[in-house]
């Protein structure tokens, strides 16, 4: 119903407004709606050339606040209308009240205007009308108008007035008032339109300044809150937090007091911090009676009391009395609760001495600060609590350290009570231990209580302690004196106490208690926890104490462990380790002596001992002496304990006797495992006294077994490593030895000599595969050599198996292995153990077996098998090397033989050019011994390199070397380059032969052809030439001339004949077809004849001396041929004589021959030429080629001389002139004719 009425009222109101506007338009009145100008533009400005709205806007833009805006507006209005008074009143948000903002009169602010308040609902006023209707209005006669507020109108002295609402959106912010005080006047529509326009501008400016102010205000508040928050949070001390909060807020706001009370709701909540403005009285003890704050706490909300004197809310007397506030001079109070997680813990309050409505900003500030304080307090509280916890934990840790480091129970408990008293800030503490048997608690430690209390006892079911023990948890008494019947007078005067039971392994062993005489001290749950923690520490201490009894035994056990550990830490041999295990076992278990037995020879044998008496050692050396239970224990890896051996049925008579003799009563048997060998032996510890073996000792024995196992494994590894190293070294030594050996037989000998040492065997053989059989090729060891040459099948047993499997074969005891007889010579000869490995060749084929033998049965360790296999592998490689080497050596020898025996000189040089081969032919050709040439370069040896100077058509090079001192030798050389597999030059081979004679013949032949050609052509030229000349018809020659010409023709023809004869002689000499007519020939005649002829024909400025004896010099010769020889010699002498020289021809008889010497004064014949000159075609170098001659003269001379049984030679030296000697045998009586042949 109410809604309907309201709707109706609104409807009517709207209708009325519409109607009103309609009427105004009709009357030409301006439309009050600010949106009017949009439909109907306002008339142009009347007074100012510039647009006043524009200048106004500029003024507003600079205005920092509403007052300035209003002033700007008012000055404009005064100027525009020419009235005396103008003012702005603000309308409250709810529209119920108007307050004066600014008024201007004669350029001054009107002082009273700001205090104007108009109740718009109840007081009649034009401002109210303008506000309600949101439309301007004018009143021509103010003094008589009922619509104005009389009070204001009179005070202004207005005659006529205009009221224009300042409208922003749907809200009227204020009303502009313009009044004429001198006279009545009307406000024409254009003025009103102007005013409305100005009001519109002003509304905008107000909105702007208002939002700016709010923003400023909000920012300021936030800043303040932030600053307070920052400072509050930076403090972790609660008091500081509170102080900061009240001081900051107090200073920042316009208040007289600012305070914080803390406490739970319903408690007095004392003041914890307070700030008072100067001169303001503090609240003091009156705090609990502050009604506003109490109200805020109760209502859990902010209470803003503008005037406490008139606030019905505060009338509840349970809140406190308003008079309290008034007595403090307080009129306005703002209080807001301080909460942490919805729990009120205090209140934050502000006091003012004047009644003041608290604005929203102030309320927000207070609430924000209260929140901050709440958070800060919470944080501080948490920190504080944390610190306390840390302290307690530290104390507990400290106490725990004491407990665990002390073994004296009294000391421990004493420390415990001291620490707990301090920690819980109690007055005293005590500790009682339960004597369960007697059912009493006996005091063990006290603090803060008389010392005589120690040892005091009381029944275990009494007092707080009794309850704690019953409930098996800590109990607290807040009223000790009232609730508890103290067990001792010393406990009188205690007001509160906690007692906690000390529980260990489910049993309560005692109690620990703390007490206080301070009535204000209340023990919290946390305190209980602390005490319980101390109680458990106490039980630990008690447990430790209990275990002290066992400490000596433990010490012994520990020593045992240490002993074992120290054994473990040393790299001991296996034997040493077994001894050490015995010692460790004996010491650890507190025995008198100990032994360790390990499997050997099919049983357990003594392997290590400690302090073992001889008789016992004797028994154990042969085994366990019939104590099968011990063997069984070893096999099952169990500990066996016999407290009294003599009475123990598990041991035989030997043992029982020995126990009596050697004085041991008990023994413990511990299994001793050698894990790598997969053997289990037994350790025996003997005790002089009868032992009741505890579980601990049995357990220790097990530990001992485990430790021994570790030690043995370690020792085994150590031994294996040492053995491997020894084998590796031996292998390396053998390898080095054999790698340098290149004779296969020697290698086999070495191998069989080395192999036994490698694996600790007694003999060795190498069998090589020959067809289907293995033949023992080398053997070493006692009686082994007899096996050499024996054969076994390559597919049979043992060696055959090795060949077939291509892997090693180990036989520990051939006697038990059921081998077929004849499978191995050495095994038949009595060796027991066999280990064989295949000799595998480079191509992977097996070509033999390396075998080692041991006299007695033995097992072959893996590393030994591997070592032999490795050696066998090496043997194969060594053998291959050796065979290869043998082949190479053979090849080399063959090559050397070939090279040495070829006719050609062969010289090989290495890559550095040094001679590595110089064969016999080379020695002969060069006349340099191989020994001299080796290692030097050919160039060094021969004074020239073997690189050819020229190359013949067949690709052979020709070089000339000097042989000996003078001889020049021509060599035909061919060269081959040797390359290594990589293609690099590895050396060169030169093959050469002596071609000196071939070359000489070649040269001579060539010279002969040209010489003969010349020698024939010269006479022919004369003959032909003179003949042609004589035939000339154009020239008439005289007789003399003609005779000369013909003479030349004749002599030249004769010369030609001589040459032809000589050639013929040579041909005959060479063909062996020379006819010699032997006859006694007087050489004197021939000499004279020849010289005469020579003087005639050849003289040419040389003189001849002939020396012949008186008596005839008869030689047996062919006269014509002798003449020919002499003619040649003389001709030769003439040819080599200088101009004017003398040629001497002397004939004489010697012992059995006749001699003719032809001596010239030429340069003589050098030694080197003296044979050569007799060669065919030879022509002396010393003569010019132009000297003529066929080079046949001396050849023919010697040939003829020999044909006659004589000879021709040179007896001459360089510089002495030439001397040719022609010797013939003396004539024999009988002339004879014989045929001379080659």
């Amino acid at each position, binding site marked *: 119903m109410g809604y309907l009425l309201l709707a109706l009222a609104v409807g009517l109101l709207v209708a009325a407004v519409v109607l009103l506007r309609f009427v105004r338009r009709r009357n030409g009145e301006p439309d009050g709606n600010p949106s009017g100008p949009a439909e109907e533009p306002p008339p142009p400005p009347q007074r100012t050339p510039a647009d006043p709205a524009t200048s106004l806007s500029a003024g507003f833009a600079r205005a920092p606040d509403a007052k300035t805006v209003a002033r700007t507006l008012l000055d404009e209005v005064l100027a525009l209308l020419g009235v005396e008074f103008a003012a702005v009143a603000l309308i409250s948000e709810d529209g119920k009240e108007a307050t004066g903002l600014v008024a201007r009169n004669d350029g001054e602010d009107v002082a009273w205007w700001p205090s104007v308040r108009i109740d718009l609902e109840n007081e009649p006023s034009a401002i109210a009308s303008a506000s309600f209707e949101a439309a301007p209005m004018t009143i021509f006669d103010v003094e008589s108008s009922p619509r104005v507020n009389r009070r204001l109108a009179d005070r202004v002295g207005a005659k006529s007035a205009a009221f224009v609402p300042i409208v922003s959106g749907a809200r009227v912010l204020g009303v502009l008032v313009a009044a004429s005080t001198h006279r009545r006047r009307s406000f024409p529509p254009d003025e009103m339109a102007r005013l409305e326009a100005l009001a519109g501008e002003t509304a905008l400016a107000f909105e702007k300044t208002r939002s700016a102010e709010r923003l400023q205000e909000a920012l300021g508040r936030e800043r303040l809150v932030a600053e307070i928050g920052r400072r509050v949070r930076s403090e972790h001390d609660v008091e500081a937090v509170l102080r900061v909060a009240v001081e900051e807020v107090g200073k920042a706001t316009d208040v007289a007091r600012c305070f914080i009370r803390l406490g739970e709701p319903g408690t007095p909540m004392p003041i914890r911090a307070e700030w008072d403005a100067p001169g303001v009285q503090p609240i003091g003890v009156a705090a609990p009676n502050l009604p506003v704050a109490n109200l805020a706490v109760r209502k859990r909300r902010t209470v803003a009391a503008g005037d406490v004197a008139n606030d019905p809310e505060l009338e509840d007397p349970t809140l406190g009395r308003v008079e309290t506030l008034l007595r403090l001079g307080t009129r306005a109070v703002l209080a807001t609760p301080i909460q942490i997680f919805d729990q009120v813990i205090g209140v934050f309050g502000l006091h003012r001495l004047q009644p003041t409505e608290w604005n929203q900003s102030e309320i927000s500030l207070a609430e924000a600060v209260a929140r901050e304080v709440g958070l800060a307090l919470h944080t501080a509280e948490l920190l504080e609590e944390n610190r306390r916890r840390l302290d307690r934990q530290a104390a507990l840790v400290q106490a725990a350290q004491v407990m665990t480091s002390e073994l004296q129970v009294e000391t421990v408990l004493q420390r415990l009570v001291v620490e707990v008293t301090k920690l819980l800030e109690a007055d005293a503490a005590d500790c009682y231990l339960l004597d369960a048997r007697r059912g009493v608690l006996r005091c063990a430690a006290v603090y803060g209580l008389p010392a005589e209390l120690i040892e005091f006892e009381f029944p275990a079911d009494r007092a707080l302690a009794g309850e704690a023990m019953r409930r098996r948890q800590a109990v607290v008494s807040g009223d000790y004196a009232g609730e508890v019947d103290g067990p001792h007078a010393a406990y009188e005067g205690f007001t509160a106490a906690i007692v906690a039971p000390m529980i260990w392994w489910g049993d309560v062993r005692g109690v620990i208690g703390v007490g206080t005489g301070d009535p204000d001290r209340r023990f919290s749950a946390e305190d209980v926890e602390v005490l319980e923690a101390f109680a458990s520490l106490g039980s630990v201490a008690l447990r430790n104490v209990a275990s002290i009894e066992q400490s000596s035994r433990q010490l012994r056990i520990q020593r045992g462990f240490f002993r074992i550990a120290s054994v473990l830490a040393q790299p001991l041999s296996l034997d040493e380790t077994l001894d050490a295990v015995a010692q460790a076992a004996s010491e650890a278990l507190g025995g008198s002596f100990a032994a360790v037995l390990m499997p050997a020879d099919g049983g357990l044998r003594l392997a290590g001992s400690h302090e073992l008496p001889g008789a016992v050692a004797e028994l154990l050396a042969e085994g366990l002496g019939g104590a099968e239970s011990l063997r069984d224990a070893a096999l099952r890896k169990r500990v066996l304990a016999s407290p009294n051996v003599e009475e123990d049925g598990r041991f035989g008579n030997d043992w029982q006797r020995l126990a009596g003799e050697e004085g041991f009563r008990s023994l413990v048997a511990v299994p001793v495992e050698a894990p790598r060998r997969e053997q289990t032996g037994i350790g025996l510890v003997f005790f002089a006294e009868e032992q009741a073996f505890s579980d601990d000792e049995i357990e220790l024995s097990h530990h001992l077994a485990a430790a021994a196992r570790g030690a043995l494994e370690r020792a085994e590894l150590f031994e294996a490593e040492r053995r491997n190293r020894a084998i590796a070294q031996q292998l390396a030594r053998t390898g080095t030895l054999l790698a340098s050996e290149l004779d296969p037989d020697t290698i086999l000998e070495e191998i069989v000599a080395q192999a036994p040492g490698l694996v600790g065997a007694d003999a060795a053989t190498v069998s090589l595969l020959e067809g289907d059989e293995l033949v023992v090729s080398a053997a070493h060891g006692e009686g082994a050599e007899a096996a050499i040459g024996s054969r076994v099948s390559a597919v049979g047993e043992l060696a055959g198996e090795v060949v077939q499997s291509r892997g090693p074969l180990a036989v520990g005891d051939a006697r038990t292995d059921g081998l077929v007889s004849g499978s191995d010579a050495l095994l038949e000869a009595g060796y027991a153990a066999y280990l064989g490995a295949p000799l595998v060749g480079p191509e992977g084929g097996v070509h033999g077996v390396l075998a080692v033998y041991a006299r007695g049965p033995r097992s072959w360790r893996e590393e030994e098998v591997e070592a032999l296999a490795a050696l066998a592998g090496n043997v194969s490689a060594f053998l291959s090397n050796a065979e290869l080497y043998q082949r190479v050596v053979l090849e080399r020898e063959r090559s050397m033989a070939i090279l040495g025996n070829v006719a050609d000189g062969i010289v090989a040089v290495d890559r550095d050019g040094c001679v590595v081969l110089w064969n016999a032919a080379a020695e002969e050709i060069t006349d340099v011994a191989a020994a001299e040439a080796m290692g030097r370069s050919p160039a060094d040896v021969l004074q020239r390199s073997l690189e050819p100077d020229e190359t013949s058509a067949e690709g052979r090079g020709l070089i000339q070397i000097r042989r000996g001192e003078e001889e020049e030798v021509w060599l035909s050389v061919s060269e081959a380059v040797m390359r290594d597999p990589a293609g690099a030059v590895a050396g060169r081979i030169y093959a050469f032969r002596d071609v000196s004679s071939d070359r000489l013949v070649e040269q001579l032949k060539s010279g002969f052809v*040209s010489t003969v*050609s*010349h020698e024939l*052509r*010269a006479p*022919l*030229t*004369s*003959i*032909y*030439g*003179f003949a*042609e*000349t004589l*035939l*000339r018809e*154009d*020239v008439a*020659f005289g007789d003399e*001339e003609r005779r*000369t*010409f013909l003479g*030349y023709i004749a002599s*030249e023809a004769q010369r030609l004949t001589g040459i032809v004869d000589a050639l013929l002689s040579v041909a005959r000499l060479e063909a062996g077809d020379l006819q010699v007519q032997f006859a006694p020939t007087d050489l004197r005649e021939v000499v004279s004849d020849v010289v005469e002829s020579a003087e005639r024909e050849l003289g040419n400025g040389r003189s001849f001396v002939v020396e012949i004896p008186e008596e005839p010099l008869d030689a047996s010769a062919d006269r014509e041929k002798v003449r020919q020889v002499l003619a040649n010699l003389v001709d030769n002498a003439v040819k080599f004589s200088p101009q004017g020289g003398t040629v001497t021809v002397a004939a004489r008889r010697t012992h059995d021959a006749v001699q003719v010497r032809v001596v010239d004064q030429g340069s003589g014949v050098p030694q080197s030429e003296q044979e050569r000159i007799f060669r065919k075609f030879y022509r002396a170098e010393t*003569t*010019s*080629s*132009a*000297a*003529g001659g066929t080079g046949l003269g001396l050849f023919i001379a010697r040939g003829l001389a020999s044909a006659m049984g004589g000879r021709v030679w040179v007896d001459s030296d360089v510089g002495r002139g030439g001397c040719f000697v022609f010797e013939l045998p003396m004539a024999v009586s009988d002339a004879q004719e014989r045929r001379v042949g080659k």
Partner: protein
Amino acid sequence: MTIDGGSRTRVLVVDDEAPIRLLCRVNLEAENMVVLEAADGLAGLETARAERPDVILLDVMMPGMDGWQVAESLVDDEATSHIPLIFLTARAELRDRAKGLELGGIDYITKPFNPVELAKVVEKLLDRVRRGERDELRREKIAELRTLLVE
């Protein structure tokens, strides 16, 4: 001293063989040439320097200084280098002929030769030399020889 100048051609014959020198003299003089003679290389060289003949007929195989050496000396000597050289020799091999031409000879006449034709040959050669064709002549001879050598 040329034919053009009215003078007779002067020929120096260097040969150790007296019959050859005589042969040349008789036949060259018959053609109105003046013949100078030298019996060995040294004499030939001296005569050439002293007499500056128009042409020299030079034997090769002579005792002492042979024809090759004489030729080299003549060519090396400014006073004689211009004198045309004709080898007249029994060395008939092609390589000797080549050597002669290389040493500066303008021709190479091998023994035996027809002495009646000698003057004509000499005259013909000198004609070309006088025409300034000495080098060309030698090139022709060398080319000719080369053809022979290749064959």
